[in-house]
């Protein structure tokens, strides 16, 4: 996967598969410490210690439709290439947190890529889900909570054509703002 936002999408999709109804994506870009930190947390069914260890094995998957699960091993490899690492914390019945850390300036670090596209792919999931997203670039943050948006929308779904265009634009503008203020 050429962009970190594709790994993020894949990790968020894992959360959906685990039955999560609330996702958190927190991205922190910190030039001073030359660190990029990506955290995905969910309230899905969680995993025991044995399974938490095994999800980093490419020949392990919870799926029955195919026999390999490459998502997290690929994400871990991407972090390790850049003097970083991937940690997973999980508790059955509570949820899972995946944290990937990268040396921000590392020459092998893939770009974050198109985060609005990633977020829209998750928000348009058939499974109803709420997403909290916070993205910080050198102290400047953009924040989005779809639970608040859903409350405002009432019975109009987020997948409604007008709502999804509005939301996609709002995310793009928000990210452009923090990039601008931070540089």
């Amino acid at each position, binding site marked *: 996967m050429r962009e970190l936002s594709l790994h993020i999408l*894949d990790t968020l999709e894992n959360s959906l598969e685990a039955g999560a109804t609330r996702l958190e994506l927190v991205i922190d870009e910190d030039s001073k410490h030359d660190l990029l930190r990506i955290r995905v947390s969910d309230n899905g069914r969680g995993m025991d210690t044995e399974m938490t260890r095994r999800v980093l094995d490419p020949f392990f998957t919870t799926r029955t439709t195919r026999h390999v699960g490459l998502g997290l091993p690929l994400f871990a490899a991407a972090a390790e290439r850049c003097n970083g690492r991937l940690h997973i914390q999980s508790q059955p019945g509570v949820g899972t947190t995946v944290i990937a850390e990268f040396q921000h300036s590392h020459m092998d670090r893939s770009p974050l890529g198109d985060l609005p596209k990633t977020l829209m792919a998750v928000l348009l999931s058939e499974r109803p889900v709420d997403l909290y997203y916070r993205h910080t670039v050198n102290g400047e943050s953009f924040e989005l909570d779809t639970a608040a948006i859903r409350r405002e929308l009432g019975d109009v779904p987020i997948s409604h054509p007008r*709502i999804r265009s509005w939301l996609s634009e709002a995310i793009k503008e928000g990210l452009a703002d923090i990039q601008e203020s931070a540089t």
Partner: protein
Amino acid sequence: MPRLKTLEDLKKLREDAQGELKVRLETGTKIVVGMGTCGIAAGARETMHAILAELEKREIEAHVTTVGCIGMCIREPLVDIEQAGKPRITYGNVKPDMVPRLIEEHLIKGNVVQEWVVGRLPTSP
């Protein structure tokens, strides 16, 4: 903060959307894009984006949603199109550059693009 202003926008949008909603849900078109690891690696996110862009360009209103892996990984990106009263058609290996023709043929002219079909489900009751 621009956030408050955008929530105000949302109220207006909601009112507009509410009126048309019922009609659309009954007669509307549903497009589903596979978004498992296999789909993502094959470019499903870009395919979904191309679909959204094409629908917007042609002012077609359809509900677009994503699902996980359904097991036909080799045919990803997979795109299902379902229209009321018609069979649900699954298209395989749908790349962004195929999207304009797909929308034109299937949604506008009402023709199934046979050579891209990998599955079909009979009309749901």
